[in-house]
């Protein structure tokens, strides 16, 4: 270990992720999530809770009330969560952040991205939304999926990433 020096990381001169402006998902993404939850919970109660307690009106009334309360709580939670979510493009990387209780923020440099993919499911299509998936090497741990984007925006992002990936090679 000759010539070893131990200079501190020159933080002031580096671009900082904290200063980046994030772009939010389109507002209808919230509605899409809400519909998704309603469908899921209706299916759940239709297949499990209702058949089990249909002959005891008191229990079904209580579980109905809980059902509604839970839904209201989820909506409130989703609204708060929505405000935290966002993505940002910089010259060399893409950042995505999400999570209210468990906040996560990932940055993937373009020169480490393998390929990207746009997909949309039936409900997503109804709300005119698309998902962008970004794949890196070495398993799913660092793959990134951004659901609920405007289809044109998703395509723009995909094209921008493709161009930047090609440039960095």
């Amino acid at each position, binding site marked *: 270990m000759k010539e070893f020096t131990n200079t501190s990381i020159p*933080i002031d001169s*580096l671009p900082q992720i904290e200063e980046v402006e994030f772009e939010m998902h389109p507002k209808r993404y919230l509605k899409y999530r809400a519909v998704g939850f309603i469908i899921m919970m209706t299916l759940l109660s239709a297949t499990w809770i209702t058949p089990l307690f249909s002959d005891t009106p008191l229990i079904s009334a209580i579980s109905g009330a809980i059902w509604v309360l839970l839904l209201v709580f989820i909506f409130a939670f989703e609204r708060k969560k929505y405000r935290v979510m966002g993505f940002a493009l910089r010259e060399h990387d893409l950042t995505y952040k999400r999570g209210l209780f468990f*906040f996560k923020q990932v940055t*993937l440099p373009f020169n480490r991205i393998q390929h990207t993919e746009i997909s949309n499911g039936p409900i997503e299509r109804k709300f005119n939304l698309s998902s962008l998936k970004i794949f890196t090497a070495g398993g799913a*741990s660092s793959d990134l999926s951004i659901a609920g984007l405007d289809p044109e925006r998703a395509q723009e992002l995909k094209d921008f990433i493709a161009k930047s990936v090609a440039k960095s090679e």
Partner: protein
Amino acid sequence: MNDFSQPRKQEPIGVIVMFLENVRKIIRMFIAIIAFAVLKNDIGMYVWIGAGFVITVTAVITWLQFEKFKFYIEDGELILQKGLFVKEKLNIPFERIQTVNLQQNIVQQVLGLTGLKIDTAGSGKEELNIRALKKDDALALQEALDSAFEPAEDSEVQMTKEGVEATNQKLNYQTLVKLNLKQLLLLGATENHLRSGFIAFALIWGYGSQLAEYFSDYSEAVTEDIEANLIQAGWIGLLIFITLFILFSVVTSFGRVILKFFNLHAQLNNENLQVKAGLLKRNEHTIPLNKIQIIQWEDNFIRRYFKFKSLKLFQGRSEETVNSKKTIEVPACFHEQEEKVMEVLFPDSHQQLVSETFSPHIHQARILAIVFSILSLLAASALLIISSGALLAVAPVLMSGIIFLSWKYVKTISFTVGNKQLCISKGWLFKKEIFFKTYRCQGVEYKQSIFLKRRKLAHLTIHTAAGSRIIRYLKEEDCLKAYNYLLSEIEKHKGSWM
């Protein structure tokens, strides 16, 4: 004979290898039924006829598999043809090949055959396995495939004097580690016995639960008896159990080490690392140095006394192989070997001009202590259910032990970020040092739960092609500093990183 341009079959005698492999698969599938039949002692006519039928069919299928399996090299691709009814053709471009490994299980050793296994970075679903080759064919094929690892500009360099020297050096393997019997036994003795015990236990449990279904009738009656006795036996039972477990663990450690590392020979040249080892199944791994993503040095408090460490190498991996044991281990590296490896794998570490070391907040020790205290108190109370007074006596000792260990452990964690390499070091009794080159990172992640936010702490995850590594409970500003710095270093880097 070493011509691979024409489609060719494996060595005919290899049918035996394939047949035995198929039989093993079938036995595995029906292990529970077989064990049941054997134990119940009623192997009737039909069972024998059935078994005979299955074996005949297997033999025919194996022979067809052998006849249909062909391999050859064409246009920089290895091509495997197989398939009984539907013809399958696998094209494996050389550049997708991560490593080419030679293997010899006991049958192959007896028949004088060598198996060749190919790891790719792509999907690991397909079986890229050529089971029966002559030794020199296998070596020649490995050589042919290995040539893909050499970068294109090599051909020009070779003309110069340095180039010639480089090629000579490339061929000459230098021995890194060669284990003799004494060292092997020392290795076995200094294993983490507790861990091997638990792993073996889990493995047996896995097989056991499959069998258990068939024995539930018998076992119920037996366990009722045993249970009553156990409660009476109390402490003695517990002591016997613990002694047996320790004995079992030590035996497993020795067994594992001897099976895996028998006659280990690790060699190094300036392009590849080669590791040959194994008693029943001899493996020969050749890894190009530039495909090694992460290395990990491990030692424990006993091995520290003998001054040696184990080296683990991680390569890029595909989704399917994420949980498989695709690590290669070189045990028993002494200080000079450690230096040698570091010099070869991290030649520019003296150019590490920028570097800063971060340590986690001591809050991590608190969390660890709380979690482990709860877990171990639950376990202790389950074991000592017979005398709850004992729990009161054990609890304080247990708790202070856990608090001390947690504190010691967290004190040892450090994370060094530099422009050339990263190092994560942790562990007091069992020490781990993880090294990888800064440019090997392919993404960074900042994680913060609301509890951490209140304390202004955060976790940092670093993604690489060989999986993710996480550094927990860093100060918020340290975490962001490393985050921003790593990104700038990755983005500056030109050229391939995998």
